[in-house]
């Protein structure tokens, strides 16, 4: 079957996915050859979340992070410019940096001591004069740098492909929720920082299980998270029966599964039915003083945006291919082999918040998320068992069902470029991601990947609304 796919290219891949019927072959989740093609066709081309400028505030700061399977160095050079380099020496491939984070003057390879400035230039080669006879052109052997890098309100994104569209074109209508994810609680742009270090752990499952499920699969929550909802891990404790999310005041919105089929992004988002911002509701009942901070921030936000419709603000969403986001957490799902996913958790917090507020937020996200949190342990059970149960030859003869809500979507002029599930739950967001997956997989280059015309798909101002 693998040979068949290779020799028949896009026709064979297309035969594995029928989104109109909501039928998807298990093979795309378990096939080694398809996985190899994903690395090349998707992860070498797509814009990927890499990190945040708050992780490298000073010249010489660096942090190791990932772009799919490959480790990269996110660094700030001595002049303050941000770079992303492949963590691999140009001489013989050794990692030039083996600390998770720190501050460096140069990156020196421990193998043969080639050394690179923090701007990536090769600045030192032993025996350059006496044994290379000064014939090695150092300018041609700097660290491998990404094709494009974008600092978007403090968040750092990159693609290896110089021919990829701009980051804002890539996001389309989802420019707005991404921008909001990095605003402070009072609506100030670039108002967040990240807790460090990131949580990192590996899940024995294909990357698409979590990446294509998150913010697209509320149907799982009632059963999967039944116990954690009863455990009352939210900041309000047992008030109103507990729960895992903070309490929020009601505001007239139309909520739903909203996705951009042309670009592959999707989420659980809102259309505002009236301008303005919801009242603040006390929720940090276990941490005295925290509500005072957030209430005052909300009042400033209300003053700023009281006359605006904040469509697509907040919510949880997914940027194709592998980054789930909201305004309090970032969840990159890094592929690490067809049956292994390296999951990262990075959490935003207002950079201007006092320490006790940051501590309360950090404690909340730690009991909610990650390998030691309670909620995502539930999810991991499902993904980690679904993968091996799909490996067998018998299993692979029977496709997955993605029919929930298929054919029942509508559009709304208030959010151009987006389709909305008629009712929740819906698996439209997952179908959207799979559709974009197919487009990337079939294309031979960025020139073959369909893109909406400029000015369409909700990216008229290039920066999102508000």
């Amino acid at each position, binding site marked *: 079957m693998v040979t068949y796919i290779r020799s028949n290219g896009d026709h064979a891949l297309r035969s594995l996915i029928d989104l109109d019927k909501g039928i998807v072959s298990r093979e795309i989740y378990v096939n080694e050859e398809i996985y190899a093609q994903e690395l090349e066709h998707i992860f070498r081309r797509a814009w990927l979340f890499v990190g945040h400028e708050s992780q490298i505030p000073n010249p010489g700061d660096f942090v190791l992070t990932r772009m799919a399977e490959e480790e990269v160095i996110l660094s700030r050079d001595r002049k303050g410019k941000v770079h992303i380099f492949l963590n691999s020496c140009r001489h013989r491939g050794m990692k030039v940096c083996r600390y998770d984070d720190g501050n460096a*003057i*140069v990156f*020196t390879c421990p193998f043969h*001591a080639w*050394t690179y400035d923090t701007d990536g230039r090769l*600045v*030192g080669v*032993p*025996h350059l004069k006496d044994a290379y006879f000064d014939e090695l052109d150092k300018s041609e052997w700097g660290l491998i740098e990404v094709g494009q890098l974008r600092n978007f309100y403090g968040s750092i994104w990159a693609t290896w492909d110089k021919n990829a569209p701009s980051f804002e074109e890539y996001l389309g209508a989802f420019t707005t929720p991404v921008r909001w994810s990095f605003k402070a609680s009072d609506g100030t742009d670039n108002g967040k920082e990240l807790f460090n270090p990131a949580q990192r752990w590996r899940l024995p499952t294909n990357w698409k299980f979590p990446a294509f499920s998150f913010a697209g699969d509320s149907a799982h929550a009632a059963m999967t998270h039944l116990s954690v909802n009863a455990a009352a891990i939210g900041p309000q404790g047992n008030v109103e029966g507990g729960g895992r999310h903070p309490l929020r005041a009601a505001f007239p919105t139309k909520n739903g599964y909203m996705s951009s089929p042309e670009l592959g992004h999707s989420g659980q988002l809102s259309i505002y039915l009236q301008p303005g911002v919801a009242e603040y509701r006390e929720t940090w009942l276990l941490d005295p003083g925290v509500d005072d901070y957030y209430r005052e921030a909300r009042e400033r936000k209300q003053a700023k945006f009281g006359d605006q419709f904040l469509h697509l603000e907040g919510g949880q969403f997914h940027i194709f291919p592998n980054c789930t986001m909201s305004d309090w957490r970032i969840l990159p799902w890094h592929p690490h082999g067809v049956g292994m996913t390296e999951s990262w958790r990075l959490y935003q917090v207002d950079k201007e918040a006092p320490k006790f507020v940051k501590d309360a937020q950090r404690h909340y996200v730690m009991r909610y998320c990650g390998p030691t949190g309670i909620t995502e342990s539930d999810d991991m059970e499902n993904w980690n068992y679904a993968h091996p149960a799909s490996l067998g030859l018998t299993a692979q003869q029977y496709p997955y069902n993605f029919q929930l809500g298929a054919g029942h979507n509508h559009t709304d002029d208030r959010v151009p470029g987006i389709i909305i599930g008629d009712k929740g739950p819906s698996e439209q967001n997952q179908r959207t991601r799979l559709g974009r997956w197919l487009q990337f997989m079939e294309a031979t280059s960025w020139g073959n990947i369909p893109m909406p015309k400029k000015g369409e798909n909700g990216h008229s101002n290039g920066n999102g609304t508000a």
Partner: protein
Amino acid sequence: MAEQGETPSAANRQRINTPGGMFVRDMPEGTKLRLANNAVVEIVTNAGDGGWVLGRYLEHPTDPDIVGTEDWVFFGDVREEVV
């Protein structure tokens, strides 16, 4: 040679068992070094990795234009400290 964990003093920094070179990792800025080609540099920045220091040329036996410029110096090219 310094024992593991010991920081060598200026007086006992010795050549280490490598084709040339000195233990430069902990040398402070301003230290003057004579190189294998007889040039003399002053440490401007020490990378602290034991391999490289950024040096400013104070003397050069064959190329006076290099004096005053900076370049990264590999520890293997350092002959001695100029005290």
